[in-house]
């Protein structure tokens, strides 16, 4: 199958490409950019005039809810959502039921994902058995089974000695750790940012210190152990400043933010909208501004969807009892574009946060359109606006605080290894 994606605006951040040209795909790989290879004869030509041709999106946090939580979503529904959102590689956190702490579970997940022949799925292994924070998992076995990193998901690690030992062990073999900084004590009963909105609504608060204390602990231990740590889901202005300083110091850290935190703040909870119950919580406008600036200046390397499909029953309860999280695979591109438009960030720089930068973390050789790469491609119309509605989402989770909002960026075609997995 030879495919010609003709006359689109090719934006390939890693290779510094941003020009109108044609992309040629043959045998599942990028065959040429610009001039057709010798003797080219396409089986299929896509007219991409007015469209952007970008590397397939790479999402470092997408919950597929398998194994164990299939009532929330299934691999089929969420892979479909990924393709519709232009996401061709995704990493899934270990907070499944049971958690991804055994090679068999990881192999099964990878096997199931492969059989669907859609986005590439990269499991993130549990750092401790059952995510209980007591015993390290068999990281070597899990890596062989396909884990790209190890994490404790949203479960706080109480035992800092275990964290230190886990870092030493991981650094011995070069396994990356993906850690969300969260203190096990401060704000543990909280459900919203400890500010004006929580005060008014009478919701228990989570102060910024719940994040910054854990972040300071992680950074101190990174300094000691030299382990590579990716910091997940920053939510506070202070955290951005701390990571900026850590990077200047030369610590081997990277970090990400969930895309909803670039747009929303605690005020968006409105009258107890449980779709705005997220982990970490939506914080103040000042925090949101710092996160946006952090993504723009590169302190924050990656923007992710933090996709968390939740069934309606688990959201149709009082705010504090609601299962946190928002569906996001189909909103990662539109919300990243929206941020870039609002803040005047060039398209290529914005796309780097959701393609080449996360690809570096996963280490899968995805995230760019160099000749010879597997042709994972997202072709989208940057001018097409669409309204986020329950019916417009493929994900089984319809839980998003963006329902009713008009967003830019409609994915027209998604290719994984040269195969169409989404088209009109």
């Amino acid at each position: 199958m030879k495919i010609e994606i003709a006359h689109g605006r090719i934006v390939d951040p890693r290779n510094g490409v941003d020009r109108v040209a044609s992309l040629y795909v043959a045998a599942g790989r990028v065959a040429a950019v610009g001039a057709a290879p010798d003797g080219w004869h396409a089986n299929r030509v896509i007219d991409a005039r007015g469209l952007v041709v970008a590397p397939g999106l790479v999402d470092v946090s997408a919950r597929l809810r398998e194994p164990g939580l299939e009532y929330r979503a299934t691999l089929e529904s969420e892979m479909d959502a990924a393709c519709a959102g232009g996401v061709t590689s995704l990493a899934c956190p270990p907070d499944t039921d049971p958690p991804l702490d055994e090679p068999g579970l990881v192999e099964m997940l990878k096997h199931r994902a492969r059989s669907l022949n859609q986005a590439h799925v990269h499991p993130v292994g549990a750092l401790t058995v059952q995510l209980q924070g007591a015993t390290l998992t068999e990281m070597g076995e899990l890596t062989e089974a396909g884990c790209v990193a190890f994490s404790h998901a949203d479960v706080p690690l109480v035992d800092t000695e275990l964290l230190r030992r886990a870092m030493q062990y991981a650094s011995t073999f070069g396994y990356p750790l993906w850690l969300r900084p969260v203190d096990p004590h401060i704000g543990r009963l909280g459900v919203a940012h400890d500010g004006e909105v929580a005060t008014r609504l009478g919701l228990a608060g989570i102060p910024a210190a719940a994040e910054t204390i854990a972040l300071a602990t992680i950074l101190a231990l990174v300094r000691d152990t030299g382990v590579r740590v990716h910091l997940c889901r920053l939510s506070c202005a202070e955290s951005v400043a701390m990571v900026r300083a850590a990077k200047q110091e030369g610590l081997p850290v990277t970090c990400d933010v969930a895309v909803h935190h670039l747009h929303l703040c605690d005020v968006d909870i409105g009258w107890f909208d449980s779709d705005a119950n997220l982990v970490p919580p939506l914080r103040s406008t000042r925090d949101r501004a710092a996160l946006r600036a952090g993504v723009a200046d590169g302190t924050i390397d990656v923007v992710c969807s933090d996709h968390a499909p939740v069934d309606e029953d688990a959201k149709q309860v009082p705010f504090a009892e609601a299962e946190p999280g928002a569906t996001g695979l189909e909103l990662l591109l539109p919300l990243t574009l929206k941020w870039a438009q609002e803040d005047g960030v060039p398209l290529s720089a914005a796309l780097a946060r959701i393609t080449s930068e996360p690809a570096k973390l996963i280490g899968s050789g995805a995230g760019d359109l160099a000749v010879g790469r597997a042709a994972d491609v997202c072709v989208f119309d940057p001018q097409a606006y669409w309204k986020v509605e329950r019916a417009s989402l493929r994900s089984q989770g319809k839980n998003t605080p963006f329902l009713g909002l008009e967003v830019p960026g409609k994915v027209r075609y998604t290719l994984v290894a040269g195969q169409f997995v989404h088209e009109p």
Partner: protein
Amino acid sequence: MRNPQLNANGELTHLLTLEGLPPDVIRGILDAATPFVSIAEREVKKVPLLRGKAVFNLFFENSTRTRTTFEIAAKRLSADVINLNIGASSTSKGETLLDTVDNLVAMDADIFVVRHSQSGAPHLIAAHLNAHGRTHVHVVNAGDGRHAHPTQGLLDLYTIRHYKREFHHLTVAIVGDVLHSRVARSLIHGLTTLGTPEVRVIGPKTLLPTAVQAMGVRVFHDMREGLRGCDVVVMLRLQNERMKGALLPSAGEFFKHYGLTQDKLSLAKPDVIVMHPGPMNRGVEIDSAVADGDRSVILPQVTFGIAVRMAVMSMIAGN
């Protein structure tokens, strides 16, 4: 965002919180309560305003006092009253809050009086009813978590207006555990909406919400300083489980700093009134001499509470 408790004509259809209610709506409720106060003095204490209507007292959290006052209010309006003490058992039986509500709607409920331990539960119910076109069913919040207790706020406003006539010259102090208090939040919204120039909160930092200043109050940690020149002092109940632990070292130390005594009260204006939403902890937040003293209006508050609840229920069922 339209206030979820007003209908398209701006009339009250649910009472969920005093926050965001127009001043005229609040004054309207207070005005409507006045004739109901005198009903209590009649031989026949009933009016037929809610005849044929069903009021469901839906209490997910235990309360005798509030439930009883709502029951009396509904009965004086000639409504049929059904008390449901659901406690924590409904969730253990697996029925969700909204399933419970749907079942009771099917039994032709007209008004739900809802008490719930979670902030926002009455909003959830009201939004559910609105979304399903059941606009003839009304929700009255009888206290949700730390969020709101609007009928208590209204009866506090009624009491203050009864003794002080107007709000625009008053200094009101709210003392004690503001952090966990839905009573305090509702009263603050009510007072600021009606133009009270100075609302103070007094307490230790552990018992004040982080951003309480943003609600339009002045914060005091020294009770003597905070009481100076006050027209109204509202004492809050301190829950037993909070008297000793991370928030406070002991009930005794709390009383020393924030208990209301005659001595401290003498710093307020001579015609100050002392209020308390009840039930009181004598010797913890308030000294008996003050609670039973001539400045106390704690018992009239209870009487006004029935009238205010009659006013609220008759208004929303009429809209």
